[in-house]
């Protein structure tokens, strides 16, 4: 079975702290095998399908061949053996930034919908114009403060999302650190914004129709994985 595996720089497993043998001279990396019962997050070669990509974002994306016994688990598959086939070079900083941009655009669309519903067309036009401006975050914050139901309105969420997009934190006014000084790398921002924007969509849905959080969140994450698979031209 061919699946996908995200690893940290140098084909290093972030959680397992395992340095994977990489392909060389046109041949796949060596087989890595485990013994004993396969257990999610504990024992086994962990990988994912195209539909689960966004649950595992990391610096490098690899195609992995799985072998032996395998079990489907929440968000992935755990197998007895695996070897790296090739790295998908298309998953890079540029792709991660494009992914973030797509996620943020969806949140902006939600905010725009909210403004339209409340008859604030002037704010809607300004919101669209702000996107490209460096002070967009400040403008959106000012707009968010004009909403009474701040905690559940898409505009309030967008305020947080724009701060996160720049590597900041919703609870802090501090400027984000650059990557070389410990700030979030593009792949880390992609992982963060993917989750947050799906959460925002689910929160908005839940507010409108109680009981719809889980299905909306799941749908958003599937949509994000599909976007990524198409962008990377993965053939699952």
């Amino acid at each position, binding site marked *: 079975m061919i699946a996908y595996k995200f690893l940290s720089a140098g084909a290093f497993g*972030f*959680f397992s*702290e395992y340095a994977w043998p990489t392909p060389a001279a046109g041949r796949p990396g060596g087989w890595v095998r485990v013994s004993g019962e396969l*257990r*999610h*997050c*504990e024992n086994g070669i962990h990988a994912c399908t195209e539909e689960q990509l966004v*649950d*595992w*974002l*990391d610096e490098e994306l690899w195609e992995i061949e799985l072998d032996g016994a395998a079990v489907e688990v*929440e*968000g992935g598959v755990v197998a007895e053996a695996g070897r790296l086939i090739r790295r998908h070079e298309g998953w890079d900083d540029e792709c991660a930034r494009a992914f973030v941009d797509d996620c943020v655009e969806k949140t902006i669309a939600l905010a725009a919908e909210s403004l339209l519903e409340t008859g604030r067309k002037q704010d809607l036009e300004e919101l669209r114009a702000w996107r490209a401006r460096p002070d967009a975050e400040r403008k959106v914050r000012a707009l968010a403060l004009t909403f009474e139901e701040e905690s559940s309105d898409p505009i309030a969420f967008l305020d947080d999302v724009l701060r996160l997009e720049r*590597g900041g*934190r919703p609870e802090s006014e501090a400027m984000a650190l650059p990557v070389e000084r*410990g700030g*979030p790398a593009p792949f*880390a*921002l992609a*992982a*963060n914004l*993917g*989750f*947050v924007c799906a959460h925002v969509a689910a929160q908005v849905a839940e507010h409108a129709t109680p009981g719809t959080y889980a299905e909306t969140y799941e749908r958003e994450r599937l949509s994000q994985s599909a976007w990524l698979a198409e962008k990377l031209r993965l053939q699952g």
Partner: protein
Amino acid sequence: MFSCRQIYDLITEYDEGGLSTSERRQFESHVIVCPPCRGFVSQIRATRRRLGKDSTPEFTAELEDSIVNAFRAWKEQRR
């Protein structure tokens, strides 16, 4: 999913295999999507690896005497 505070509290148990499968999944799910917690886990592990490389000095009688003498001298100064 765990909160950032829970990640800070559970990092040692995670690394020592003290969490259940469900807790491990929640821990990892949070760390993947939270850049500050990812940085925290990386730092803790880098520190642990560095400490693991340092050799522990042999605790000789001379070393013990020098530590006790240094402590007594420090205590004397504080009087």
